[in-house]
């Protein structure tokens, strides 16, 4: 089996922000056709800031850990800052992923971009 860093193992054992957000401001479901892994990302946004992020992922331990660390990275960020997150940063936040496992962090980057590109602020009553 591929070696995992302590951080991957830690996030895998205790993933943060697992779950769904009812009526999310933004969300996306992305999957990797090669391995079949799927991530569903939910975001709550206030103004231009992400205030809540949750996920559900079917995937390998690296994909679960990447989803978990991604939600931590997202919370508190402004939308442009979130859009700038790369797979390399996700991987670095996990202490690095082996070459075979790099694609598992791609899922996170794709989910962020897919969710936020589709995001349109709600009309506030006025």
């Amino acid at each position, binding site marked *: *089996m*591929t070696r*995992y860093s302590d951080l991957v*193992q830690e996030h*895998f*054992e205790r*993933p943060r922000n*697992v779950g769904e957000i009812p009526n999310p401001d933004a969300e996306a*479901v992305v*999957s990797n056709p*090669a*391995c*079949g*892994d*799927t*991530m*569903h990302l939910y975001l709550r946004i206030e103004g231009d800031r992400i205030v809540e992020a949750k996920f*559900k*992922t*079917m*995937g*390998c*331990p690296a*994909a*679960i850990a990447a989803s978990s660390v991604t939600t931590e990275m997202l919370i508190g960020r402004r939308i442009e800052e979130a859009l700038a997150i790369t797979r390399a940063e996700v991987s670095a936040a996990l202490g690095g992923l*082996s070459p*075979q496992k790099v*694609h598992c962090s791609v899922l996170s980057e794709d989910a962020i971009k897919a969710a936020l590109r589709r995001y349109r602020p709600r009309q506030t009553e006025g």
Partner: protein
Amino acid sequence: MRQVYLDHNATTPVLPEVLEVMLRYCRDDFGNPSSVHRYGRRARVAVDEARDAVAALLGAPAASIVFCSGGTEANNTILQGVAAALKDKGRHLVTSQIEHPAVLDTCAYLETQGYRVTYVPVNADGIVEPEAVAEALTEETILVSIMHANNEVGTIQPLAEIARLVRERGILLHTDAVQTFGKIPTRVDELGVDFLTFSGHKLYAPKGVGGWYARPGTPLRPLIYGGHQERGRRSGTENVAAIAALGKACELAARDMAREAARQLQLRQALEHGLRERIPAVRIQGEAAPRLPNTTNVAFAGVEGETLLMSLDLQGVAVSTGSACSSGSLEPSHVLKAMGVPAEFLHGALRFSLGRSTTREEIEYVLAILPGIVERARALSPAATP
């Protein structure tokens, strides 16, 4: 923490009696079997006795057994060696889609060298149908290679029937018996094969030793040239300690085979039954087919096998998602794909392979922790995509 090893198809521990033999030929009787003095003669006797023990398990003459570095080298030697020896007779080989990479990758290499290879499919139970092999044979076919039992799902192939169809055409038949040797009977005349591959580390001998059987008179060009050991069929100073250990392991396997097979089968059935009872959406691969008594491949819908493997590992249980060599690869197992396992199960398979050390308590431990592990993984999974 409790340690439970359920990955005996990947490798087995060296048994204490086997290790003793090994140490003796490392430390005391360390001679080179080619030497004429007493050190050499003692080593020669050890190699000869080991050959007899292997031959007994195969029901074959001792002179038909050649030792080498293991199953991979034996498969390479037979496929490449027959191909080279018979290249003027024909350049077509037939194998199956569920072979070990040591066969499949050698075939892929032969394809780059001007040979043609047909990869016969399997049915949904993971069995190579003899008629499908017969249909693949041509005037050009020189060798058929069909494994005895599959390492990932444990299905036992109908070799005797395949042999009848292949040999009536005058074509040679090889079987990779790495997963059956020492577990169930492997008498070459009952299987009807011309070549057979075996490996030490699946039957409680060390890694890095194994060999092949070649029916007397069959053509085979060596892969390795040198000092004429193994009567020129495989050069290189014999790995005496490992070969002697393998001989001892064969004796123990022959002594305990029937009892261990029955005992492990019972435990495996308890495991399968318990998983079915406690976990919804479970699929046992090749369930209807004859299978190795120690092996079961169980898939859990909607989860990823590696996630289950890692959760089990964190609780002391060692299993595999397929073959040890393919783990870490993205693609689902080529064996499960060939069997047409439905998509929702394809990524969520675990292989449990029991062994001599496996106890009922260990099976019960797995049955106690695995339902929670699957449940957690399923709770993490997104609901079916809208």
